[in-house]
Structure formats: C-alpha cells, structure tokens
C-alpha cells in the first residue's frame, strides 16, 4: 500500500468535481474561493513533503487493480513528480480563484469548475503515476477535459473546431504513446516505471527500441505542441483565459516534457534520442519564436512563445548533459511562474478593456497599476533580467549552449531574442506609452483577477533573489530523478562577468530594440507566415473524408448484386489461394481418370448432361416460369442421381422438397411484375466470367474429394439386419420407417408445415380475389 495520502490527494479532485456544480449553484459569488481550498490544501501537502524528498526518500502507493495483467494502481512521488504536482496544485489554486472573477455570472460556472478539477486530478495522476497504464489513463483524461474546457464557449464554431483539433492531435499522440508504452513493458517485463527505469541498458539494446521510442515521442510531442504538431496550441486559445493559463501554458502542455524527463534514464543517451528529441526541440524553439513575431492577439502571442519555451525544454532533455537537465528543471519552474502570470494578465486586460489586440492597447499602467506592476515583473522574468528567477534559468541555458558549440548557442540566442521581444510587447506595449481607446473603459481588475499574477510574479522575484530557497529541496531531487543519480545543485544570481552574462545583456538590449521596430518587423514578416503543418492536418482530414465518400458511392451502393459479386470474388480468392500449392495439381492429374470414365454408366452421363443443359436453360430463360421449371429439372435429376447411387430415402426427400419448392415458386412468381432484363450485356459477360470462375474452382475442389471414403458402405448393414432386427423384407421400407424412423418423422413434419404454408398462400390469394 504505502502512502494512502498520496492516493487520496490524486483522487480528491474527482470527488470534489462531483459537488462543485452544487457548491457553485448555492454560493455563486464565493465559489472560486471555496473550491480553491482543495488545491490549496494539496499545495500545502506537497510542500510538506519536500524535506522528505530532499533526504532522498520517495513516496509510493500501490493497490491491486487488474492483478491478472500485472496492473496495479500505483503512484510514486519523487522530486520530478512533486515539482509538477506543486505547479499543478499551486497554480491550480490561483486559477480557481481567478476563474471565479473571470467567469462571474456565467450560468455554466459550476460545470466549468467540475471539469477544471477533473483536469487537475488527472494531471496530478500523470505526474505521480508509477504504472504506465495508469499514466496513460490519466493522460487521456487530461486530453478529454481539455477538449471540453476549450469548447466551453461552445456557441462559437471556431471554439468547437479548435477543441476537436486539440483533442484529435493530442488524443492521437496519446494512443501512439500507449502502443510505445506497451512495447516498453514487453521488453522490460514490467509496466511499473520504477522497475522500467532500472533497465535502461536492456531497453536501449532491444531491437524494439527505435519503434518504442518513436511511438512514445509521438505522444510526448503532440501533447507538448512540438513541431510538427505545434499548431493546435495557438488555436486552443479559443478557451477561456483561465484554461489557457492553466492547461495550455503551465501544466498540460508540459505533460510531454514531463514524460520525456521521466523516461530519460530508461531511453535517453542514444544518438536517436539526441537527434530526435534535441533536434525537434530546437526546431520548435525557433519556429515558435519566429511565428510569435507577427502575432497581434495577446493570447496567441503568448501561445507561440509557449511553443518556443516547450521546444527549449524538449531540446534540453534531448541534449541530456547534467548541466542541460539542471537548466531544464530550473526553466520549467521559471517558465510556469512568469508565463502563468502573463496569461492571467492577458485575461485581466481582456476583461477590463474588451480587446486583446496589442495594436489597440497602450498606457494601461495608469488605469491598472497593480496588474501593471505584476506584468512588468513577469515580463522582466521572461526576458531574463536579474534579480528574477527567469534570469537564472536563461543563464543556465546559455551555459549549456556555450558548452556545445556555435550552432546551438546561436539557436538559443535567437530564440531568446524573440522572447525578449514578446516580453517587451506585453509589458511596454500594453501598459506604457500612449493610452488608446478601447471597447470598454479600462479599470483595475477585481482582487480575484490580480491575485494570481501578483503571487506568481512575486514568486519569480522571491526565488530569483534567493534561489537557495528551492535549489536543495526542490531542484536537486528533480534533477536527480531525471538523471537517475543523486546530484548537488547550487543556484546563484551572480557568477561574475561570464560570457553568458554578456550574452544576456546583449540579448535584452537587441530584443528591446526589435520591439521598437515592431511595426516594420510585422510588415516585413507578414508575407512569410508558415502554416504547413496545420494545412497537412486539414488535408489529412479532408483526405479521410474523401476516402469515406468514395467508399460509400462506389462500394456501399445498396445494390445486392454488387455485394454478392464481391462476396463471391473474395471467396474465390480465399479458397483459390490453396491452388498455389503445387501438389494439388499433381493430385488432380493422378486421379484415375480412365476408370472414372469406364465405370460411368450411360444414364449417369445422361443425367449429368441433363443437369448442365437445364442449368444453362435456367440462366438464359426469358421467362420466370421457364427458369423455375429448368431448376426443377435440375433438382429432379439430382434426386435421380441419389437413387442411382443407392440412397432411396434421400432421393424421396429431395423429390418431395423439389416439388414443393417449384410449386411455391410458381405461386409467388404469379404476383411479381414481368421479367425484364436490366443489366447491360457487358455486365452480363462480367457476371458470366465470375460465375465460371467460382463454379470452375468448386468443381476442381470436388474432384479433389473424389475417391475419399472413410466409412464402409452402410448398405450391407441394412441388408443383413432388415429381417432379424426389424422384421421386414422390403429394405427401403424398413430404412424409412424403422432404422431412420425419426428422420422420416422429421421430414413428414417439415413437409406438412410447408404444405400448410402453401395452403395459407393459396387461401390468402383467394380472399383477395373475393
């Protein structure tokens, strides 16, 4: 079992989600503050665990779930898990309070809270799961709750489309990830992360490694909006701002990064890992920053910068050096603090002014002083200015780049330039300069709306000024979990005048310079927008739809004859494949053809010819009655064959059934319209070919069966025993009424009921005439 508290913590969100709508209905105004008590309590719980983690302890919980499959509901909280859990519950607290103000008066606020809590609980599950399947279950639950939260303002068609897009892209990735995780479980023999992570060497040596890695990466990349899946994140900005801040910046989109960090000890360290993870990360970092330049919507601007930051994180994991991993952990925390704050500020600005267009905004510092000071702090952290925490993160990333060489450091500096530009756009552009006319008259936001940004920005400042607050108890255990071995972490604001510091200074200056040239920059870049990945997504969807349409039109067209044709052809294909075996042909040519011909009696041959002729007549007959009569001839001839081969009872049955069915046919056909030839002669030729193919094949098979006899003939038994056992001299009679008496009874019953049916048909007709 272990720490039961851990399980309670993870599952509590689901329980509170059930009552959230009721709470909201009764206490609409205070709902946010009330519901926030849950994430607050969780935050305190995780903070209280930090000293234990710093001592190298790990919290675990396991309960049997599906024991037959080795599935357990197992949780494990180490440094990495708790870092994410703190982000999830801590920022969650602020978001819940914020949403109370932001969506004040919305009739669906209760439902919103319910899904927000479901999301929070699922995300905690992702961060704290030990079992891979448990992780996957929570992973898909985050996709589902994100889908519903993005589509919250469902009156708008674009919100619906964006919700679906996010769901399809991340859900798809999640499924690919499941396949990858199953492969990992297959190779390592365990679905528990704690066991899996100790088998890195075996995993990396396995031939399934590349496939498993690529599948897992598909999941991680789609969730964390890496190229080429990045497009869903900016579109998801249709969601209400608290959702964007929470899911699409601070937590859910980091799930992919979390998974990569988590699996680093097991899968990392290979060339494939370096190129796939590091390369895609770097590409995303640059692409996200570049695409942000031309954005004018505050939230989309932030979304692209989030894409860029996620790329940076992915790249750092891919590089995998101990410095890179340390930088990654620091950056996760720093980014969550400043980006969460900026999203909330964007929402507050939108709330206060009615617009998010940066070209329409300016000089808001006078009307919104508290929000503005939080914005300035957060933007400084984003730009990497001391003494904020973002500065420490950026210094570390620069050191990583300098360690690796000119290409990497150039890419990092380029993305940092974009970041400074975005930070200046928000802080300088929106809050300073000339006051613009906005749809609503700007006013300071209510306390619920500024509390979050102020707390987050304040934390940036606090941790930045005193990094030793987190370095030993939070950062070190996390880095240890990712690198798979204990590490010591020391963070400092001041390292002396290093190349990294000089680069930082230059970046900030050039970035601000870019900001002042923003109009020219936007004009220059406007024609160079790139949306290839999104177009591919649209093309894929259209292609699937076109395929489906073609299927319906060509194949599923409702014509029975088409269905029948494909069924016959498929049957011929399935069974005909047997003929590919060479021995069959030998077997056929070895049949005793000579004796077959010699043994054949003239009336057998005559019957065979009759059957063939009658069949042809049935096919070509221009009238229904003619066809039925021809079929009757076939049936009677077959019963004669039975007779000739000594099965009189069979022959009799066949004879009576044949008579009845011809009779019924005639009765039914009487009511049908005239026989017309509908198909073209080309279609008829095609049908003839298919029929000949099927018939020919079956004939071949029957020939194969010739000469197979297992049981001795039963005739002798009947002849010997007719008199002693059944006291009858007429053997046929004895067979019918004695040896096979039950069969006869059944046949008589069937015939009787069939005759009743025929009578009913006749009667029905007579009544109609009368």
């Amino acid at each position, binding site marked *: 079992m272990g720490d039961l508290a851990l399980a309670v913590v993870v599952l509590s969100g689901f329980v509170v989600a059930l009552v959230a709508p009721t709470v909201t209905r009764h206490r609409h105004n205070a709902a946010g503050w009330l519901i926030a008590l849950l994430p607050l309590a969780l935050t305190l719980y995780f903070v209280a665990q930090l000293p234990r983690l710093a001592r190298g302890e790990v919290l675990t919980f396991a309960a049997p*779930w*599906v*024991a*037959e*499959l080795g599935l357990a509901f197992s949780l494990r909280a180490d440094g990495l898990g708790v870092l994410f859990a703190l982000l999830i519950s801590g920022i969650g607290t602020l978001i819940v309070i914020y949403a109370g103000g932001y969506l004040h008066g919305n009739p669906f606020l209760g439902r919103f809270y319910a899904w927000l809590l479901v999301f929070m609980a699922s995300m905690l599950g992702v961060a704290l799961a030990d079992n891979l*399947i448990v992780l*996957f279950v929570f992973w*898909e*639950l985050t996709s*589902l709750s994100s*889908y519903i939260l993005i*589509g919250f303002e*469902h009156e708008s068609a674009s919100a*619906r489309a964006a919700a*679906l897009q996010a*769901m*399809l892209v991340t*859900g*798809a990735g999640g*499924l*690919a990830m*499941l396949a990858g995780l*199953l*492969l990992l*479980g*297959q190779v390592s023999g365990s679905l528990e992360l704690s066991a899996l992570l100790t088998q890195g060497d075996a995993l990396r040596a396995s031939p399934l490694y590349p*496939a498993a890695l690529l599948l897992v990466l598909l999941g991680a990349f789609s969730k964390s909006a890496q190229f080429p899946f990045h497009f869903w994140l900016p579109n998801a900005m249709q969601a209400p701002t608290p959702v964007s801040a929470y899911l699409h910046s601070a937590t859910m989109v980091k799930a992919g990064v979390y998974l990569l960090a988590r699996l680093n000890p097991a899968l990392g360290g290979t060339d494939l890992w370096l190129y796939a993870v590091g390369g895609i990360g770097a590409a995303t970092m640059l692409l996200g920053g570049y695409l942000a330049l031309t954005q004018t919507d505050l939230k989309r601007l932030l979304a692209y910068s989030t894409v860029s930051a996620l790329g940076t994180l992915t790249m750092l994991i891919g590089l995998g050096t101990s410095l890179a991993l340390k930088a990654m952990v620091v950056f996760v925390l720093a980014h969550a603090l400043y980006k969460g704050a900026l999203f909330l500020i964007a929402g507050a600005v939108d709330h206060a002014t009615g617009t998010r267009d940066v070209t329409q905004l300016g000089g808001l510092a006078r009307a919104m002083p508290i929000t503005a000071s939080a914005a300035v702090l957060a933007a400084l952290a984003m730009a990497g200015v001391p003494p904020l925490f973002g500065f420490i993160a950026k210094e570390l990333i620069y050191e990583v780049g300098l360690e690796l060489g000119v290409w990497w450091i150039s890419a990092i500096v380029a993305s940092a330039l974009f970041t400074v530009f975005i930070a200046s756009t928000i802080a300088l552009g929106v809050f300073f300069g000339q006051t613009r006319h906005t749809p609503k008259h700007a006013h300071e936001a209510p306390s619920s709306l500024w509390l979050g940004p102020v707390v987050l920005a304040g934390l940036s400042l606090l941790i930045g000024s005193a990094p030793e607050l987190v370095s030993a108890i939070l950062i070190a255990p996390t880095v240890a979990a990712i690198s798979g071995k204990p590490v010591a972490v020391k963070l400092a604001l001041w390292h002396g005048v290093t190349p990294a510091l000089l680069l930082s200074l230059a970046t900030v200056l050039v970035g601000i310079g870019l900001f002042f040239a923003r109009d020219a920059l936007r004009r220059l870049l406007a024609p160079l927008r790139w949306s290839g990945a999104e177009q591919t997504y649209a093309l894929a969807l259209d292609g*699937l*739809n076109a*395929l*489906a*349409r073609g*299927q*319906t039109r060509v*194949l*599923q067209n*409702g014509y*029975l004859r*088409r*269905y*029948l044709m*494909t*069924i016959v052809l*498929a*049957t011929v294909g*399935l*069974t005909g*494949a*047997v003929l590919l*075996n060479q*021995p*069959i042909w030998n*077997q056929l040519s070895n049949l005793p053809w000579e004796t077959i011909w010699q043994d054949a009696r003239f009336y057998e041959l005559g019957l065979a010819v009759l059957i063939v002729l009658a069949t042809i007549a049935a096919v070509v007959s221009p009238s229904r009655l003619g066809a039925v009569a021809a079929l009757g001839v076939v049936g009677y001839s077959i019963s004669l064959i039975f007779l000739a081969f000594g099965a009189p009872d069979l022959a009799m049955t066949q004879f009576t059934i044949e008579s009845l069915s011809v009779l019924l046919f005639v009765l039914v056909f009487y009511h049908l319209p005239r026989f017309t030839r509908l198909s073209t002669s080309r279609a008829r030729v095609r049908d003839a070919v298919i029929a000949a193919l099927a018939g020919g094949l079956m004939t071949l*098979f029957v020939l*194969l*069966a010739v000469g*197979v006899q*297992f049981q*001795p003939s039963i005739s002798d*038994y009947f002849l010997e025993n007719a008199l002693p056992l059944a006291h009858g001299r007429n053997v046929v009679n004895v067979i019918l009424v004695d040896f096979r008496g039950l069969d006869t009874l059944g046949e008589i019953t069937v015939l009787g009921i069939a005759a009743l049916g025929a009578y009913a048909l006749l009667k029905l007709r007579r009544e109609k005439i009368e």
Partner: protein
Amino acid sequence: MSLSVPDLNFRVIAPALIVALTALIVLLAELVTPAPRKRWLGVLGLIGLLIAAGATVGLWGAPASAFGGMVVADNFGLFLTLVILLGAALSILLALDFVRAHRVDQGEYYVLVLFAVVGMILMATATDLIVIFLALELLSLPLYILAAFKRADARSLEAGLKYFLLGAFSSAFFLYGIAFIFGGTGTTNLMKIADALAKNPRNDLLLVGAGLLLVGFAFKVALVPFHWWTPDVYDGAPTAVTAFMSVGVKAAAFGAFFRAFLVALPAFAFDWRIVLAALAVLTMTLGNVAALLQSNVKRMLAYSSIAHAGYILIALVAMGASGLSSALFYLLAYTLTNLGAFGAVIALSDGERERLEIRDWGGAARQYPFIAAMFAIFMLSLAGFPPLAGFTGKFLIFSAAVETGWAWLAVIGVLNSLVSAYFYLRPIVQMYMSEPVPGWDRIRVAPLVALALVLALIGVIALGLYPTPAIVMATGGFLR
C-alpha cells in the same frame, strides 16, 4: 458397424433448452393474450432468460461434454452464453415500449428473439461443425424475419430480404466448407479434426474447407469484404432489432469462429493467422473510415460494429490464452456499450419518429441531460477512452497482440481507434454544443428503456474501473 445411442446429457444444454421452452410457452400464450397485454409476453421471455442465466451459472466451473461430443459446457461457452443472455435481456427491455410505438406489438417478436437466442447459445457451445451450422441457421432465420418485422416499412422489408439472400449464400459456402473438411478428415467433430490434422498435416481439402468456413463466419461477424449487408440491414431493421443483432450475433458467431479455428485448426495457424491479420486490417480500416462520413446514427454504428469485429479478430490472430480471454472480455464490453448506444437512440425517439440523423441530436443535452450523458459515455467507451469498458477491452486485445509478436497489428489497431474517436465525438459535440433542433419536443422517456440504459452504464463503468472479476471469468478457456 453398429449404431449407438449418444450420451444424452440434457443438463449440458439446459440454458438453450430453457430458452427454447420459454419461446414455445410465449408462442402458445400469444394466442390467448389480448392485444393491450402483449408486453407481458416480453416479461415472460425476460423471466425465461433469467432462469437460463441461473442454469448457466449452475454449470460454471465444471466443464462437461454431451451428445457424443456435439456440445460442451465449458467456461468459454458459458461466458458467451451469459453475454448472449445479457444482450437479449437488455434488448427485450428496450423493445417492450419500442414495438408498441412502432405498432408491431406482437408476441411473435419475443418468440423470434428467443429462438435466435437458442441458436446463439448452441453456436457458442457447439463442438461439432454440423451443430454449429444448425445453430447458425437457427439464429439466422429468426433474424431475417425480425429485420423485416416492421412490415409497413419498405426499408425494413428491404433489410430483411437483403440479409436473407446474402445470408443464404454465405450459409451455403459454410456448409460446403463443412463438406470439404469432412472429406479431408472423415469427421465434423472439432477435436477429431485436430487429431486427424496432427496425423496428416498436409491436407488440401481441409484447407479449402477452412477457407469456406471462414467465409461463413466472416459474413456473420461482418468482416470486410463480407460486410456489405451490415449498413443496409442495421439501418433498415427496426432499431430494437438492430440493437439485438449487433451484439448477440457477434458474440455467438465469434464464439464458434474462435472455437473452430483454435480447437480444430491450430496446425494451420501459420496460414490462417496471416489471412486473418490482413482481414483484420481491412475490416478495422474500412469500418472506421467509412463511419467518418455517416450522418445517420444507425449507419454510423453499423460501420462501427464492423470496425469492432476487426479489433476482436486481432485477438484471434494473437491466439493463446490471453487472446482468448481478451476477446471474451471485449465481447462483453461491446455488448453493454453497443446496447447502451442503441438504447439511447430508442430512448429519445418520439413515437415512430427516431433521431436517426446526427444533426437531430442538437441540444439533446439540454433537453435530456441524463440520457445525453449516458450516450456520451457509451460513445467514449466505443472509442476506447479510459477508464471505460471499451478501453479495457482494447487494452487487453492490443497487449495480447504485442505479447505474441503481433505488435504491428496492435499499432494499426491503435491508429484505427484514433480515426474512430473523430466520429464517436461528433454526436457528443452535437448534443452538447449545438442548439436544439426545432421539431423535437420534449417527450417522456420510457422508464424501462431508461432502466436498460442505466444497467448498461453501470456495466460499462464497472468494467472500466474494476475489470478483474470479468477477466478472471473470461480466462476459463475451452474444454478440448
């Protein structure tokens, strides 16, 4: 030679016998039941199904064979029997009000359902090809009639006729296959076929016979390219009938399919596994892709049922104990989920008018929050979302495939689930995010239908959250 009397152990076929007896009683009672009380005949049928379920549970855990190796009562067969009885009971619950609303309130409806159930149970427990064939016909004939049960509706008649004609064809292939297998081995008993095969592994006649058997099974469970009837018949048949046949036939036919191939033909596994894997890919892909565009809920569910047959086929390809138990679990999960989905369609129909077009579902969540929520959960379960029954089933099948070295097939299955998410989500989007469609006034949901939905919902959630008991039950295996 001499003729011997086979061992007549009626206990072994008690579930089928009880249902058959119930059917006969209902048939007689129908004659003396006045028109307004016809629904009591359905209740009578339900009681019979319940007793049969009790008898099935009584047979549990003590595998026995009877009638000269013709039928068995092993845990594999009994599990399927329970699934079939469950499916039949839920679909009768759905039908009680449905048949009245559609003015086909006749006792024969229940009689036909019960007779089909007899066929299904026999099919799941038969160990002789001849009995399998008889059971196949016994389950098919009532379904042909049921599909055309709404005689005033041309679409229903068309459905019945198409199903009948194509079904007769595939039955003929099936029978022909049996003849070839008999020709190849001298027996129609599954275990004896395996023995004969072990002695003489090169047996072309048997291969031909197996191919033809496959055609028959493929038709009944709707594998591509033998699936053509499915959309037309599911669409045209009365919804309550569609619900019944979408689950019962699958369970029964897959039961015989698994038994025939795993008990009689394991020696040919190398050949048929590849063929079945190809069919599984075709079936899943075509089913899911075609479902993307359907605007009609019943047609969408028809293609979805084709796709699900493909997933189950993966379990057969995987073979082994895990493949077998995963298939059983999947059939149970699918039965509950699919009946729930069709049940929601029935629940929201207004008299004879049904919400068959997906756009008719607009705003349903506002008018019927509970039915809509249940329908959404059934759709998510069909799509394989955790933690619902559908996910557990898919997970079991895919891990069985990975375990036995068919990882690529599992990956294709996973990709297909992804395509399917798109069309399963569409009705949900429509219900929750669109305006109500004018012309759909709020109606009272029949309590019995709601009961069936709630029962299915409990099953779907329970199988997702705590599947262990069902998985344990599903690992019984065959009596060989």
